[in-house]
């Protein structure tokens, strides 16, 4: 469970709370970076390590919920745990709907926070893993020639070799050769494996982009 590469970001306008959270996070072997405002945090580049965010809801300037919106806009998939001294049901519902990991009223038990932290980091790890996989698949797709890409699209659409040959006005043998290269480049062991890989990315869009 202890993984020193994981980082916990803390955003709270109360220095005492910031410091207390930092200590608590440190005590479980995690790194904590603290910020006194949402704006300050948004200026930070997120590191390439598992991370999560603990944020107060009521703050001067951007509130915690505003911060959540901003992150979504930037497509930054960092899990958020909200802590609040005066949470109301509507606020927590909104936060949870927007994807918050947890919503903790102050004062909270350390275990509650740590559980939330771990699930957040786990979630982040998972996300990061998926993102890495997609990145790899995209890299493999990009290694294909334009003709191979065309063939890939039709193959994953479930067309037979001779149908593809007809569509692309190629010989069936040529199609077979392309297909063998595709399997090799995509590191797919079977047609089913190839389909699973390509499902994770939008190969059509990717084909367009590559043109």
């Amino acid at each position: 469970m202890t993984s020193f590469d994981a980082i916990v970001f803390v955003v709270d306008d109360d220095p005492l709370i910031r410091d207390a959270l930092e200590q608590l996070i440190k005590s479980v072997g995690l790194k904590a970076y603290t910020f006194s405002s949402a704006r300050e945090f948004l200026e930070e580049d997120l590191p390439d390590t598992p991370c999560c965010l603990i944020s107060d809801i009521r703050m001067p300037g951007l509130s915690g919920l505003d911060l959540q919106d901003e992150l979504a806009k930037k497509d930054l998939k960092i899990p958020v745990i909200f802590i609040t001294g005066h949470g109301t049901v509507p606020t927590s519902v909104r936060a949870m709907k927007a994807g918050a990991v947890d919503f903790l009223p102050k004062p909270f038990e350390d275990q509650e926070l740590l559980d939330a932290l771990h699930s957040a980091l786990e979630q982040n790890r998972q996300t990061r893993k998926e993102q890495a996989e997609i990145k790899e698949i995209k890299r493999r797709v990009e290694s294909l020639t334009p003709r191979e890409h065309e063939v890939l699209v039709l193959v994953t659409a479930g067309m037979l070799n001779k149908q593809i040959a007809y569509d692309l006005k190629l010989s069936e043998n040529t199609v077979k050769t392309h297909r063998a290269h595709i399997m090799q480049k995509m590191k797919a062991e079977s047609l089913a494996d190839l389909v699973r890989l390509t499902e994770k990315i939008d190969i059509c869009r990717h084909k367009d982009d590559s043109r």
Partner: protein
Amino acid sequence: MTTNNHTGKLPDTGHIAKLILAVLLTWVLCKPGVSALAAEEPVPKRILAIFAFKQALPWAYRVEESLRAALASQSSFPIELNVEHADLPRYPDETYFRKVVDLYRYKYSGLKVDLTLALGDELAELLIKHGDEFFSDIPLILVTSETETFPQDLKKPNMTSLVWGWDTGSTIALIQDLLPQTKHLFIISGTSKTDLSIRENALKVVPKFENKLNIQFVTDFVTSEMLEKVAKLPNDSAIFFLSVLRDANDEYFVSRDLMHVVSERANVPTFGIGDTYLGHGIVGGSLLSAENQGERLANIAVRLLGGESAKDIESMGTENQLMFDWRQLKRWSIDEKRLPPGSIVRYREASIWDDHRGKIIGVIVIIFSQAFALILLLIQRDKRSRAEDESQRLRDDLTHVSRVLSMGEIATSLAHEINQPLAAVQSYAQAAQRFLAGDPPDIDEMGKSLHGVVAGSRRAKEVIQRIRMTLEKKPLERTPLQVKDLIHDVIMLVQRRADEKKVLLRLDLADGLPQVFGDRTQLQQVLLNLIINGFEAIGDAGDSYRKLVVQASIEEPDSVIISVQDSGIGIDEEHRDILFDAFFTTKAEGLGMGLSISKSIIETHGGRLWATQNPDQGTTFSFTVPIYMEDLG
């Protein structure tokens, strides 16, 4: 006419009455066939009165008036009075007189004149010289200021000589009496024949006073210089103004008017000779009355016309009256008590009272009643302003109370303020636990965390202190208090709220409640809190029965019990025990301080606060307050 009012004899009315009577009589007599007398048609006796003076001279005018009236009233036969004004002081030359005589002769040639009256020393002199030409066989009465003006040896059998009864001696004596400090007397007189004649009268009496008074006659003067002089007389002086019809510069005057100027300019008191002067600046004097002289003259004239012989008729005599002007007495600080007995004081300003007693009383009554009304209004205003002050004071007090009550509204932010350090402390402490549990324990980090614990607790303490400061107002200030006032004051504040909430607010106060001993503000705060609580409890109950009763009675020998009974939702059994605990609340926005504070206030006062369930509906909160005892206070 102006001076008629001052004689006190109501001459106007008398004269008018007499005149009317005379006119009526004449009319009756003249009417043919009415009576035997009427048939005789008596020819009116004709009098020609010639005044030496000009027409508007006050003295002459008043004498003429009086003469005319007296003739009508005193005679049993009709008399026709013709009056001429020769204006001789102004034109003393004989040529003028001759022309005037010619005029009169021409004017009266066709008329039978039965009696001629010649008034003024100027006339006497000329008549002595030229009288025969005109008045040869007409009886003549000569009126002068001095007998010397008309030597007796020149007197003809049909002539009667009379003198105005000037009494200068009495006036000089009077000046001495009234103003004993007077050393100098300035006697002002003109240069006309009449002026000199009156001066002659004074000259005769002066020697009597010269041992005590330095008497100076001011006769040969130019008026403008004289007027300057009178303003700078020595303090121990007085002025005696006789008559000035003409001055040394041959300027002509109305004596009274010049006297008026003199008295105004003068730095010392002025005295005079005739009652026509009174009211125009003289202090007073032994004054000759113009009316009186006119009446006497009429009397003699009627007797002559009635057939009496002229030589049997005595002179007009002196009938002077001591008269004074009240305003001048005041001006010269002359004590009225010093005036000789029988003195008449006119122009008394106080006499307004006599003249207008009714009006004055009326006005005073109106003024007083207005003042009274005004005072009432002022008192009312004062009361109101006091009531306003009182309510302001209550409001101020209430600001504090509402500060406590509005805690509910700010409870959320307060909770946050306490929560923050509390959350921090908990996190620090738990972090410390974890650092301790490590292998090896991270003592450095543990120290940091514990430091945080201390910082957090300290902040929480500060928050609590701030709340306490908000809640606590001041030390207990106990005074004797009327329970009714105490309750009424609070009711006044909550009545509106009761109306808004449609709660029937009722008072049930026992008679003869004694004073209690406590801090007004704090007790009102408690009562207010209980009533507001009651409203809130009722707020959630059905509409049918919404009532809040405030009761006060003597429960124990030494305390008054005040209770607030509501028809609200009541108190759950489980909450009964923690009802008065701080921060216990069932209200969404409440802080749970109201009852806790109230209880501590009541206990500080040596009383109790408790709650009971009503048998039917709602709750009753009661508290006791000790009765005020003199020896305790």
